[in-house]
């Protein structure tokens, strides 16, 4: 049971190992706070959809299962979007269209197909939580690195001294690709795979 939770954090980390959900990973990680909000929003959708699909799994006919998953996922995403707009409008506008794009995040559909539609509710919950937190963690790391090298802060707190000249490329598309590339390389090196 514990394995269901732990595997998403490291061994099967959705970003560094499975390379899924790349659009939001690259697009919104210009700062720690953006990465964190996107990670949490995705975790919520992942957990809620996992619970719903897993409890309904015996009722869903096989032929329409993808359509069912899509309805469930997109409904929960709408809920998140509306709540974000109502309670944290600043973050909602920062994330822009990438918040609704959680609908097509392959991690979510992938987990429903591979796990929630087959396993009992308790295991699906742990699986979704693990994957969600693993995803959020990756986004937070990438967001912190990009923010640090962009303007010398992490989460808005000055880390590097005032001597640090801001590096605009870090918050531009090219910087996103290159930082993630280096992080993936580092992750592979540490975990000693390949």
């Amino acid at each position: 049971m514990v394995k269901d939770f732990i595997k998403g954090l490291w061994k099967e980390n959705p970003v560094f190992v499975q390379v899924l959900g790349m659009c939001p990973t690259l697009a919104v990680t210009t700062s720690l706070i953006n990465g964190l909000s996107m990670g949490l929003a995705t975790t919520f959708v992942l957990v809620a959809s996992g619970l719903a699909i897993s409890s309904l799994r015996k009722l869903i006919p096989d032929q329409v299962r993808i359509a069912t998953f899509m309805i469930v996922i997109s409904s929960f995403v709408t809920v998140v979007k509306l709540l974000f707009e109502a309670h944290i409008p600043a973050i909602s506008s920062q994330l822009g269209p990438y918040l609704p794009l959680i609908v097509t995040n392959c991690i979510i559909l992938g987990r429903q197909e591979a796990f929630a539609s087959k396993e009992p509710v308790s295991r699906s919950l742990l699986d979704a939580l693990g994957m969600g937190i693993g995803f959020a963690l990756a986004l937070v790391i990438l967001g912190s690195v990009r923010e640090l090298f962009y303007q010398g802060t992490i989460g808005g707190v000055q880390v590097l001294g005032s001597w640090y000249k801001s590096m605009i490329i870090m918050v531009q598309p090219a910087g996103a690709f290159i930082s993630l590339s280096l992080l993936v390389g580092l992750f592979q090196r540490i975990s000693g795979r390949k």
Partner: protein
Amino acid sequence: MEYFFIFVAIVLTQNFVLHYFLGICPFLGVSDEMEGAFGMGMATTFVMTLTAIITWNINTFILKAFNVEFLEYVSFILVIASLVQLVEMFLKKYLPELYETLGIYLPLITTNCAVLGLALFMVLREYNFLESAIFGFGAGVGFTLALVIMAGIRGELHEEDIPRPFRGTGITLLVAGLLALAFMGFSGLVPT
């Protein structure tokens, strides 16, 4: 002229893949065959153009007219999923040759975030019907362009001795970063 600029912007200066990070999954997972990449790109362009046309009508005449904009995401993703199914069935029946070439790529298009992203961007930018259609088609062309370039470069990378941890994902992302840098050179091409 404005229509032309919408097209140029979405293909070059604000390429869907390299600027907005939409459609990254197929972009990173693309094979090293240019032909396959081109086929995938064409199939996606086709679905994207149709998506733009249909979702524009749904948004204007149903969602906005009846004030049920909260159904936006649910209805858009259902449209895309059924569109992909329809295109698949149509091709299978009437154009079996084309189906042979494109068929395997079609099911993957539903979860390509570039397609849903296109519909969302279109609504956000309040494009009219013609602008939406051009935007959809241009986004598809931009996606195809990025995909084909990436496939070409990956074909060449086979010969290279890449450090172990970077093999696969690492080097692909690095190449994508360099491409994004190169595409930044186009900025300023479209006047505002």
